[in-house]
């Protein structure tokens, strides 16, 4: 039967991860909306314009990691495992740099500026929005490292190219969300 032979549908993993991204995007949208609604509503300091510094370096790192993960995927597609490991490690390193920078920023805000989630409305919305994103970066990093460990243990990673693609889509999403969070928190909100 020709119907059966020519029958092609989208990959179920692709659809699944896209739906996860859709639902996560709405979750972030709610926190972004809350952030924007509460902009300038804080009745007490410290205020964002006084204490926030634009995290340029870590932003560049995170955005670059989207590029390196594509290069890693490409290397895997061509069967070049050495390059795959290299680019994958670079992705992890760039993601880790971002998280370290966030950690340092929070430490500065809490210790030096005395801004916690309870201090005022700005602290509440800032830590929850940036923290929600950082949580997603950490989850992404855990999965990236699982793949790294699997390759180091000579697990046949080439067979998992499909799943690695799904992971990279998630990673791109986390990066894209950062563009929004960055714009709202550090540019509009300052």
């Amino acid at each position: 039967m020709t119907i059966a032979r020519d029958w092609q549908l989208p990959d179920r993993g692709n659809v699944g991860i896209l739906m996860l991204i859709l639902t996560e995007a709405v979750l972030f949208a709610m926190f972004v909306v809350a952030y924007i609604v509460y902009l300038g509503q804080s009745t007490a300091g410290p205020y964002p314009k006084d204490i926030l510094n634009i995290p340029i370096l870590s932003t560049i790192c995170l955005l670059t990691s989207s590029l390196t993960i594509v290069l890693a995927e490409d290397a895997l597609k061509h069967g070049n495992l050495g390059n795959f490991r290299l680019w994958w490690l670079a992705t992890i390193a760039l993601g880790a740099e971002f998280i370290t920078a966030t950690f340092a920023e929070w430490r500065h805000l809490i210790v030096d500026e005395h801004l916690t989630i309870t201090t005022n409305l700005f602290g509440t919305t800032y830590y929850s929005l940036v923290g929600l994103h950082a949580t997603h970066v950490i989850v992404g990093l855990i999965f990236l490292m699982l793949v790294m460990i699997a390759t180091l243990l000579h697990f046949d990673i080439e067979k998992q190219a499909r799943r690695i693609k799904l992971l990279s889509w998630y990673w791109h999403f986390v990066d894209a969300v950062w563009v929004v969070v960055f714009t709202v928190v550090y540019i509009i909100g300052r």
Partner: protein
Amino acid sequence: MATVNYPLESAGLRNSEHSVLNILYRWIATTDHKKLGLMYIICMLLFFVISGLMAVAIRIQLAVPNNHFVSPETFNQLFTMHGTTMVFLVGMPMVAGLGNYLAPLMIGARDMALPRLNAFGFWAFLFGGILLYSSYFVGAVPDVGWFGYAPLTTTRFSPGASTDFWVLGVLVAGFGTISSAINIVATTVSMRCPGMTLRRMPMFVWVMLVDALLILVIFPPLAACQIMLMLDRLIGANFFNPTVGGNVLLWQHIFWIFGHPEVYVLIFPIFAIMSEVVPVFSRKPIFGKPAMVGAIVVIFFIGVGVWAHHMFTVGLSALSNTFFATATMLVGIPTGIKIFNWAATMYGGKIRFATPMLFACGFLFQFLVAGLTGIMLATAPFDWQLHHTYFVVGHFHFTLIGGLVFGLFAGIYYWFPKATGKMCSETLGRLHFWIFLIGFNITFIPMHFAGFLGMPRRVYTYLPGHGLETWNLISSWGVAVQIVGILLFVVNIIWGLWKGEKAGDDPWDAWTLEWATTSPPPEYNFEKIPVVRSGRPLWDLKHPDDPDWRFE
């Protein structure tokens, strides 16, 4: 010889196949969409009974003025747990259960797209439910209403752990709901059998697809406001703290962005059931299928933009009130299209009034009434008068019982033969329908009048001499009639399982693929993956001289 091990092990498994432990293990560890679907439905029915008993207690308390059947504190817990259970532990597993059991069968697939995620979804839902109910064991039962309005839920007004139980239980169950929604979308997009184009996909699956997409869009807002509330309660954030500039209306907005479309999430599966039951029992293909699909998509889009009609009384601007009132009334148009199309499907058909069709007709009339009172409440000044009265309670119980539960019974009676291989009794089914119909109307019609007379919601008693006694007493007696109806349903199910006659593969002479396999279907659903050429593949099989695909 290492290879010998495998057959030996499976032989050992086969020997103990009938031990209780083994059967239990196979249900707990299953990833089969039919077993998970049935487990959803069974849990749903259990929670339905628990939650129904709470409603009985509420009606006993309100039967006469100044009653002291329960304390005010208990009354608050009762309506909170009743609402929360009905929405999250009865409605949501109904969506997931029906979608799980039927969608793969109807599109000619062997399982859902992501079976392990499916199992995770079920257990997350059940764990969320158990977490919510474990509040009874520590004496911290949620009592803030199913909508959990801030600031009532903040630590200042709700100390102790009761609200934490409510938030966490619902949040965890929500993870299950989101997983199953992702799964239904992936299944309908990626698992359709050869020839099953989107145009040929059964109406049921279409509606479940839109329903799953709606879940993916509205459950994150619920999670978001619950996470905000948790942050406020547990580590002292200020989202809903007006003393530092926070706004309690933020909760209402985000919650109703979820909460209003949620009623569409709950009623869509019933639309799905109607769109299968009505054609089969009218012996006609569904009238205007593209318009039906279009209508459901339109409801999806309008539905996410009407939330503030729950908030007319908080004092929004005149412009917002106008916008949300108009948007709400617009929902009447696509819903009207659906009602007219079901009626048009029946028109000129050879209608068989079997039990599923009786319930479908009951749905049609009662859901229409619910829709009309909905349009009334969409008018902002009318809502100012009747907000927080029993008129609203009557309205949404007409949608959720007159609509949802009647439609659900239609679905259960329709697919029971498929899931069990046995038929229910028609006589008991008819009796169940008429008694439940009468009991339902006796209970909920008087609520509209009590509401007009000023009977407030969520207040544990009322004073005599305001004309409320009669209506409340009638309502409460109606519950007794409904209980008889529900008992007849339980008897019918047990009788069907125990003594019901064999159903055969296709007892209703239907047209969708689930009736092409045995009843109950084997674990792999279809021996050979079917290939379809029209929207009614079984019609094509039964009428090779006059197949549908010739006209598509």
